[in-house]
């Protein structure tokens, strides 16, 4: 039934999109958590610089961002030459490249909510944890992270959805190669370009419904626990 409703290309592209979004969100959380923590807690003057930088990837149109990334990761760019020295394939036109592009493009949506959430945790709860013998890492994971849960959810949701819908960077950097770098959003775009509106609609609605259900699950899970302040 599924096979008759979706073309094989559609299914492959959906799978690639989901994989891309999941990998991107996971890596972004890994990367942005320490950055956001630093931004939220530092008193250094560099903080303002860091905060401003963190929003910059948004300012460029995605295709242009993709273009510069292509130059960078291509065989003549620094990134590409580095990969070459390491004996690796260049990342352009590969899934890895898509991940890098999506990460760069969605980074602000993870950093900013995380930073705000960490900021709201404040210092008192961490001081309490310190007096209870928790080492810095320990208190980060057992106090700061759980109390900043909403920030993690907001950031993950925004980045996940944004990566699913992302198109410019992926098209430019990935080259729209079926089965490898062709994501669902590109396929939808292709359907529209080919004036195949029913195909576009089918896939759009699939994405929307799938995402909606996913978000419902995430938010329902979050609903059950509601706390307000870090220490009470």
């Amino acid at each position, binding site marked *: 039934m599924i096979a008759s409703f979706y073309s094989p290309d559609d299914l492959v592209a959906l799978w690639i999109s989901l994989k891309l979004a999941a990998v991107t969100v996971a890596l972004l959380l890994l990367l942005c958590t320490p950055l956001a923590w630093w931004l939220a807690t530092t008193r250094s003057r560099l903080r303002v610089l860091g905060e401003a930088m963190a929003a910059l990837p948004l300012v460029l149109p995605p*295709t242009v961002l993709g*273009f510069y990334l*292509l*130059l960078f990761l*291509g*065989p*003549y760019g620094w990134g*590409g030459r580095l990969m070459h020295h390491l004996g690796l394939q*260049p990342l*352009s*036109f590969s899934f890895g490249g898509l991940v890098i592009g999506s990460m760069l493009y969605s980074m602000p949506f993870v950093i900013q909510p995380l930073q705000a959430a960490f900021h709201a945790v404040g210092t008192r709860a961490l001081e309490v944890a310190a007096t209870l013998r928790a080492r810095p890492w320990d208190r980060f994971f057992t106090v700061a992270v759980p109390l900043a849960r909403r920030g993690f959810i907001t950031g993950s949701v925004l980045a996940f959805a944004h990566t699913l819908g992302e198109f410019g960077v992926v*098209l*430019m950097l990935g*080259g*729209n*190669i*079926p*089965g490898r770098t*062709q994501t669902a959003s590109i396929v939808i775009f*292709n359907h*529209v*370009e*080919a*004036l*195949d509106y029913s195909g576009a609609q089918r896939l759009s609605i699939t994405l929307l419904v799938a995402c909606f259900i996913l978000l419902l699950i995430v938010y329902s899970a979050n609903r059950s626990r509601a706390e307000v302040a870090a220490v009470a």
Partner: protein
Amino acid sequence: RAEELNVAVAANFFATLQKLAPKFEQASGNKLLLSSGSSGQFYTQIREGAPFDVLLSADSDRPKQLEAEGLGLAGSRFTYAIGTLVLWSPKPDVVDRDGKVLRGGAFHMIGIADPRNAPYGTAAQQVLTALGLWQQLNQDKKLAVGENINQAWQFAATGNVDMAFVALSQVSDRNAISGSYWLPPQALYTPLQQDAVILTRTSKRALAETFLKWLRADPQAIAGIKAAGYHIAE
């Protein structure tokens, strides 16, 4: 063992090639992986090492340039289709057969593709310039510019513009055209030659050559291209 051929195809030819591809795949036993995009994007990507084997461009400049830079295989380039520009409206009685409607000015907006990037946009600009209307329409902000010819078509199809310069291939279905249209004289614009070229970095040169030969000479292919509203170079 079946091989896969990576074909970068201009967006306006994507739908046509999608219909032809199964026929080639059946005939040759190999698979075509079609990537659609704009010609400018493909040019950039090919310079940056994109893993395409064949480029079916929407113009002839980019393939020529690639050939000159040694990225396109010398001698492999040929014109696989020639496009026809049409001024089209989905409604009947909007566009007359002589294009007088353009001079009347009794319209809200016209859609075109971006003349700087899209060959059909360049052609539309040439037609409008030849008619002496280009400057005026621009000044009056009566031109809605799409990224490519598909967007120009969408502008018109959704009724947001009264008419649009589009490709004949987009509006003709087995030589029948719905709505009203005007075919500007071929003399008013440079022919819309769409060239194909094999890319030097391909590792499947034989298959690429087979595919291009099929596209150029196979009766089924030629019929399909023509049916989509293109001419074939004589």
